[in-house]
């Protein structure tokens, strides 16, 4: 039902059941918000969105109050503006005013609000909150003094990720957000997915920066500096730096890396191709052995930690294949090192990803060979854009260059692995290709590409039927459990921690909107239709690696470097 309400003496239309805020936004009236997150239930914690409603004694929060026909609303009366301003001033009164040194300088929602509300003098004074820094996690840093307790991280961790590692602790002035027992993050059940980092309005939660380490190694002439970047990085950098992405930019980035000072530039997509074909091999093995247990894809490191903590019973069924980043990393330290004639310990290997959990993954046990880790440091796309700016490189003016052999290219399915469902699709296509000796029709995968949090499909290659489940975001795990409890059998299960897959990873931009996510996915699927190399088996890079480089290298010809192991993990829950 549509009716009219009166806002600032003008009539606007509103729908029954919607909130004041959504009605106002539709009509171009902007109300500041702080604790609000789209698609989440409102909590009304920040009180920034208050408006004046005639007949109500107190101000009303627009984010939660449903519109009613009689309403006369005033959105910017002096009373309302004063209230909003005072609230921000209260927040600023004990905030550590180190904006110039802050991780989120110029990108901070509190800073923005203070500017929008014209706060130019310190009216309310207080002592600064005592600083408390938690750097224990390899992926995420907590700066508690910068927390304004909006509760977004708590809600994301509970409602979107379901690991519920963060919650409010204590009451009154001692209230703060933290993991169980108020211990540090590395003791907790945090899976380092970093979704909390994306939603944090201030720098209270941010990824751990490894730029300094990279800078230090860039100045060491005796070290070979190698970098690998995931297929999403070029698009992410374009978004981060604010220009339109085109396919050319994939190759431009290679020269940008060389300008920064990296000696070798590799494509993580090569590792993804190997990952897909290794998992396809494992799946074929299982099909041959008529195993009735599903194979879980292990590419998402956050999901792996989640499984180790909360579902240790499935660990034997999780594929032992390392993630694409680690596969590429291990190839850099073996194959690439041999080609360049450098000892593996003289290589500094950096990986750029759209993910914070990769920072954690690079430090896992079993991610090293002979005491040398596969990947030395992981940067997020945000960090890379800082590095590019730091080195003063004009990315729009760089020339396209090819990446370095032997990991210079990827197939289009390697890029699809960045979207939820893409990895499973790639494995099925690879299996199909091996069994049916022909390419699978794209139409078949429509079901796996929808946006639901749990999707399933079955594929008949003629000789065998393979049923696949895709869990898009950990909220889908419940549906998977239900489906399995009701007797459904799956051969292959893909789980991605972030809804939508890596395109919504925590390493890209600070606030992902639904539209941006959709664009990223669309772009990747379109590329799949046009690319000639659309299967790992067809990629000359992969063929070269498998047939020649790996086979000939006696140390790694058993392919053990592509595999790892998982163990039950004891954490504070």
């Amino acid at each position, binding site marked *: 039902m549509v009716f009219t309400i009166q806002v600032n003496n003008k009539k606007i239309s509103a729908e029954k059941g919607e909130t004041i805020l959504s009605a106002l936004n539709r009509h171009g009236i902007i109300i500041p918000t702080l604790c609000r997150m789209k698609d989440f239930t409102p909590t009304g914690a920040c009180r920034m969105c208050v408006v004046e409603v005639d007949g109500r004694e*107190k101000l009303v929060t627009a984010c939660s109050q449903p519109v009613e026909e009689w309403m006369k609303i005033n959105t910017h009366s002096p009373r309302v503006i004063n209230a909003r301003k*005072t609230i921000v001033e209260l927040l600023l009164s004990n905030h550590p005013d180190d904006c110039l040194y802050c991780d989120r300088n110029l990108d901070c929602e509190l800073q923005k609000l203070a500017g929008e509300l014209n706060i130019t003098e310190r009216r*309310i004074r*207080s002592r600064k909150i005592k600083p408390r820094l938690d750097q224990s996690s390899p992926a995420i840093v907590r700066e508690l003094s910068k927390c304004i307790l909006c509760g977004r991280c708590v809600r994301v961790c509970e409602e979107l990720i379901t690991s519920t590692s963060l919650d*409010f602790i204590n*009451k*009154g002035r001692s209230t703060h957000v933290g993991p169980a027992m108020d211990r540090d993050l590395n003791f907790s059940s945090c899976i380092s997915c970093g979704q909390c980092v994306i939603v944090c309005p201030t720098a209270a939660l941010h990824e751990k920066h490894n730029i300094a380490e990279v800078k230090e190694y860039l100045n060491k002439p005796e070290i070979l500096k190698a970098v690998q970047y995931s297929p999403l990085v070029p698009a992410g950098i374009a978004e981060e730096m604010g220009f339109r992405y085109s396919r050319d930019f994939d190759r431009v980035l290679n020269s940008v890396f060389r300008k920064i000072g990296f000696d070798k530039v590799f494509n993580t997509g090569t590792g993804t191709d190997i990952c897909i074909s290794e998992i396809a091999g494992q799946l074929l093995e299982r099909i041959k052995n008529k195993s009735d247990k599903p194979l879980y894809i292990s590419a998402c490191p956050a999901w792996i930690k989640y499984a180790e903590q909360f579902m240790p019973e499935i660990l034997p069924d999780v594929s032992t294949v390392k993630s694409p980043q680690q596969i590429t990393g291990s190839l850099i330290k073996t194959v690439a090192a041999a080609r360049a004639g450098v000892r593996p310990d003289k290589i500094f290997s950096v990986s750029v990803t759209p993910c914070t959990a990769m920072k954690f993954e690079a430090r896992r046990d079993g991610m090293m060979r002979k005491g040398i880790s596969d990947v030395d440091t992981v940067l997020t796309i945000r960090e890379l854009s800082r590095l590019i700016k730091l080195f003063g490189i004009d990315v729009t003016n760089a020339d396209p260059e090819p990446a370095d052999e032997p990991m210079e290219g990827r197939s289009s399915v390697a890029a699809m692995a960045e979207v939820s469902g893409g990895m499973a699709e790639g494995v099925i296509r690879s299996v199909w290709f091996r069994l049916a000796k022909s390419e699978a029709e794209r139409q078949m995968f429509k079901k796996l590409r929808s946006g639901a949090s749990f999707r399933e499909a079955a594929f008949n290659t003629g000789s065998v039927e393979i049923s696949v489940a895709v869990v898009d975001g950990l909220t889908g795990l419940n549906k998977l459990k239900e489906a399995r409890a009701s007797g459904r059998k799956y051969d292959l299960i893909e789980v991605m921690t972030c809804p939508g897959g890596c395109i919504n990873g925590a390493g890209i931009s600070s606030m992902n909107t639904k539209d941006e996510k959709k664009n990223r996915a669309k772009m990747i699927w379109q590329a799949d239709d046009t690319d000639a190399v659309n299967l790992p088996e067809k990629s000359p890079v992969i063929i070269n690696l498998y047939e020649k480089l790996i086979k000939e290298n006696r140390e790694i010809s058993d392919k053990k470097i592509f595999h790892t192991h998982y163990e039950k993990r004891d954490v504070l829950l």
Partner: protein
Amino acid sequence: MEDLKKILVEKVLLYESDVLPPETESILRQIRREKTTAPVIYISSGTSSIISGSEETWSAIKTYLDENSLKTDLVRVGCQGPANFEPLVCIQLPGKNRLFFRNITGEKVDLLLNGVFHSDINEDDLAGQQGTRGFEMWPGIPFIEELPFFAHQKRIVMNNCGCYDPENIDEYIARNGFRAFAKTIRHYTFEEVCDIVERSGLRGRGGGGYLTGLKWKQALNTGSLSRYLVCNAKESDPGAFTDRTLLESDPFRLIEGIAIASYAIGTSNAIIFFRKGSEHALERIRKAIGKAREYGVLGNNIFSSGYSLDISVRREPGAFVCGEETALINTLEGKRGMPRLKPPYPTTSGLFGKPTVINNVETLMNVPVIMLNGPEWFRATGTESSPGTKVFAIAGKGRMSGVVEVEMGTSARTILEDIADGIKEGREFRAIQLGGVSGSFLTSENLDLEIDYETLREKGIGMGAGGFVIIDENTCMVDLVRHYMEFMRNENCGKCIPCREGTGRMLEILESIIRKPENEESGTTLERFKGVMQLDSIASVMKDTSLCGLGQNAPNPFMSALGNFREEFEEHIFDRKCRANVCRGLRTFSIDVEKCTGCTACASKCPVNAIYGTRLQPFFIVEEKCTGCGICYDICKFTAITVK
């Protein structure tokens, strides 16, 4: 025993007529101890009695009776109300009026009982006699009902308090107990009960004053299959102890009230949400629920009516904010005690998303009498807009303290001057604080206001849940407001910004007012003034925007004190003086040279070594070092130390 239970249930509770046959009535009189051959000794056993030493009194009396082999009934009863009288011992000799003896500690027992049993009553400890029909009057002894403390009260809710053993369901039934419930479930429909309570005009006694019957109707009409009734017994205002006293003294009546309310909203799930720390009351209510189950008042298919009900008891985790109704729901669901957004209101979506009615203890205890005597009877007491009575917990500087029940419309002056008997030691009255930490002050101008919801609301004062704190001239209003603000800063849930940060900032500014002036030249004075200028604006934004009642009402004491005692704030800010000599930072102590004997007592106790001098010579205090703690002032035997 089994027979008695059968008689009570079948011949009393389920008896069709309101007038019982004489033989049943005679049994009930026996249970009520109105027909006894042996003397009866009643000892009050509320929390305040136990603190005053009623357990020692109990054992002393028991020893005395054993030693003298006297056949006497010894009964623990609830609390009568006057906390000053504790431990209160009432003695009823066969056929004679009950005598009230106050402050009977263990050592007084022998003297008292010797006197009573040998007709030589010690008048010093005697408070009075309670007139009961059919009993012989004691000549020359004043009636307890005529004492000012009791004379101005009207007891509906507290009718049974202190009169019967709160662990004995027989006595409760003998005092018309559970008859309202039995009548309700047999003769009325859900809607009719809601209707009767709505017509009675009963309003929520938790402070909001919402029509109870209307609330029930809203929950009943939601069309949801399951609903919840929650009795909010989380009374956590410092200085309020009405609910605790009612629970300890008359638990069965609360159970009856809950039972009727549950029936009215058609639920079988009732929960009592208990305060952490009221262990005594908790034990009583648990025993009472057990007894009620035994007698079939609770359970499946109660009295073959087809209606089932069970009451469960839940304890709060220990935070002030958990008393807020939506935070309470979160707590009951096992979540963090944080208030939720309203709407949806609990009556439409509360506990586990089901319609939930949350009522205060006092509200529910009014229900049985309304059902028994009808809404018109209830409307005859109190005022037009607020019928009935209100229970207050008088605390603070009055001569009398304790729990009292007055008719709505009674003036605060009556409560202060008659019931509480004025201020202790004849000091000057300053204010009454109504409604606990988030309440407002009633000053001498407002003392004649009739206490009812509408009159107080017009003046911008909340009725509160029953806190009635009397404040005299020895209390510093600034310090008191600071204290309340500190409580709020520590007890808020931390969810919404205006409340969490606002209480903190207001407290810091208030502290700067009463802190000792240091380094006045370095700009702290300017800072202080700047802060003071913001107090009002922070307070109004907090009131306007906070999420729940805690934040919205947290500035109330400050705003009310500033309105009524502005000059006191100004003295603190401008003259740096505290007229009540309470604020440590603003006190200056000095030693009267004439009076000081040089005994060194003060110098040796001074925690900051601010007192210097030679033995047997007058000492002196170094003002810069002095923190104003006042230890020297208390310790000086020669009143040589003066405070300004």
